[in-house]
């Protein structure tokens, strides 16, 4: 649905984007993570055909952002990180205006505006002047605006920035609803735990370079060293530790809060063979679970590497 190939953007002597490539299949929620100035907004602006790349190509639902900006605009909804609203317009009029800008017939606009206000939880504010809405409500309204033409792709640049915790939760719920509606969503954000919960894919960008991209757990697994197991045994703890340490796939073994935490190299089959080795030795295993690494760890690992 979204394909970015070797995207480069140079401002004078500064390289904002350095051959960034990634793909987002249909229906995925792609979390775009990176420190400030990493190139997230630049990438999203290029994808929205608002900025011309120095090199590389990008496609949104098959439309080339450089050569077919009109098609790109038809197929995506864009929510910038900073945006303003017009004075003297009600929420309904605001959405009606943008729907008209997308050439949606007048007869359909009223229903679209009402439905979208309902979706983002602003139905009771339909007649309120948009410049008097709080930041959180403006964010929701802007999200509704990005949806007026029912785009297949949504580009959301820091949709939760500046929102209080409650507003963030509400925004997350709206995004989940959009995911259920089949939208492909790209979100740039600093709030990593929310991305882990919400996103199916992730891209970590730093200093204009894509450090890692792929399904969330895969990226986390790649970047955090090995996979971890949490094992609870009934007695014979020292014996269990000795067995684990002797296995070649085990890298480290620790006792944490009465449970064994073992870091190992390998896939799920390897985990099964570790369990088998313990039970074969007669150890009674009462708990055996995989511990996933956090996105924060992956992010820190990816962004702390020397650029070179």
């Amino acid at each position, binding site marked *: 649905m979204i394909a970015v190939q070797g995207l480069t953007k140079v401002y004078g002597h500064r390289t904002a984007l350095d051959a960034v490539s990634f793909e987002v299949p249909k229906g995925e929620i792609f979390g775009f993570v990176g420190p400030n100035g990493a190139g997230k907004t630049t990438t999203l*602006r290029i994808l*929205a*055909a*608002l*900025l*011309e790349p120095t090199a590389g190509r990008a*496609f949104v*639902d*098959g*439309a*080339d952002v*450089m*050569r*077919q*900006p*009109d*098609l790109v*605009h*038809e197929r*995506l*909804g*864009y929510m*910038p990180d*900073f*945006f*303003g*609203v*017009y*004075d*003297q*317009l009600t929420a309904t*009029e605001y959405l009606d*205006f*943008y729907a*008209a*800008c*997308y*050439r949606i017939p007048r007869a359909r606009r009223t229903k679209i505006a009402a439905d979208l206000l309902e979706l983002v939880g602003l139905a009771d504010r339909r007649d309120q002047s948009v410049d008097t809405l709080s930041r959180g409500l403006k964010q929701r309204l*802007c999200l509704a*605006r990005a949806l007026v*033409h029912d785009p297949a792709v949504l580009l959301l640049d820091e949709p939760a920035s500046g929102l209080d915790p409650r507003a963030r939760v509400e925004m997350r719920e709206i995004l989940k609803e959009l995911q259920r509606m089949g939208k492909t969503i790209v979100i740039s954000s600093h709030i990593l735990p929310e991305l882990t919960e919400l996103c199916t894919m992730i891209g970590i960008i730093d200093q204009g370079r894509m450090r890692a991209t792929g399904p969330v757990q895969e990226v986390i697994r790649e970047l955090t060293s090995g996979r971890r197991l949490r094992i609870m045994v009934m007695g014979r703890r020292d014996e269990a530790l000795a067995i684990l340490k002797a296995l070649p796939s085990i890298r480290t073994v620790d006792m944490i809060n009465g449970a064994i935490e073992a870091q190992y190299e390998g896939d799920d089959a390897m985990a099964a063979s570790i369990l088998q080795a313990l039970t074969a030795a007669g150890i009674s295993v009462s708990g055996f679970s995989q511990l996933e690494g956090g996105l924060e760890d992956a992010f820190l690992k990816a962004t702390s590497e020397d650029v070179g």
Partner: protein
Amino acid sequence: MNRVAVALWNPIVAKEYRSRMRTWRSPVAMTVYILLLGGLGWAIFSAMSAAARNVFNGSPANYGQALFLSLVIFQMVLLAFITPALTAGAISSERERQTIDLLFVTKLPSFSILWGKLLASMSFVFLLLLLSVPIFSLVFLFGGIELDQVLAAFLVTAVAALTLGVIGIACSTAFRRTLPATVAAYGASFILLAGSLLYGLLFPTSIDPNATAAPAPPAVSYISPLLPLVTIGTSLPVTWYGIGPGFGSGGGGGMMCSGTPGGGQSCVPLNASGKGVASPIYRNPPQPTGTTIPSGLFAGWQYWQATITLQLLISLAALVLSAILIPPTRRPPWARRTRAAAGGS
């Protein structure tokens, strides 16, 4: 709606009307405008009434002409102040408010954004012009002014306002911030109104005694709407401006001509300092007739026709410049594939 109608009437216009007319500023601006114009009309009317009571120094037709001339010039000056203020922030304020990207990602072409902003701003200016019609109708109480003169004056004023509006939009597109855009728009407005007239003063057309046609001010000065407004108001040939030696005429000399009551032309030889050195020499060169431009690039045209033509050309150039500057990506049209050819890859 067909494509032309869609291009001309777009959501920006409706949104701008809605936003503009819901504020207190618009009715206040209209009221102040009418009060200023009406106040000037009333002051001139009172002064003339007082003068007419004391001494008879002219026919009512002259009063009508003087009133009309004062009003059209004052209206032009007022609009020269109002129009840049309305248009210079049209695009730059969208940038400052961070709303322009939201427009660029819609299906509205960049030119439609430009056109919508221009149409919305100019509609307000034309509304002000329309509001002034009742004040101008007072002129007909005195006579001396025909309807075609009023229409021509309004046409010149409207086109001049349009030109100032398009220049304002161009400045708003070229500058990222509203303040420098406004300063530039007022600068351009001053050049258009006064700068072009100043050119005629500094570099007037020198008189050629052997010329077969009467001299006319330099063509650059026709850019100013003030020149045609005066010629429309007075219905007299231009002999008082832009002809004779100027600062650019080197060693001086030449002649300064002016109309005589009999309709002839009085030409005075001038010395290097620009002062007449002899008593007037009555010649019989070809005389300008009415408000027609007697010679030069626009020979045979009315002054107002030349002004409108030049201003529309300036407007077109400013509009093209704006259309080039406004898109977020400067992709030339030929580098874009057509919608029909773009199937998706």
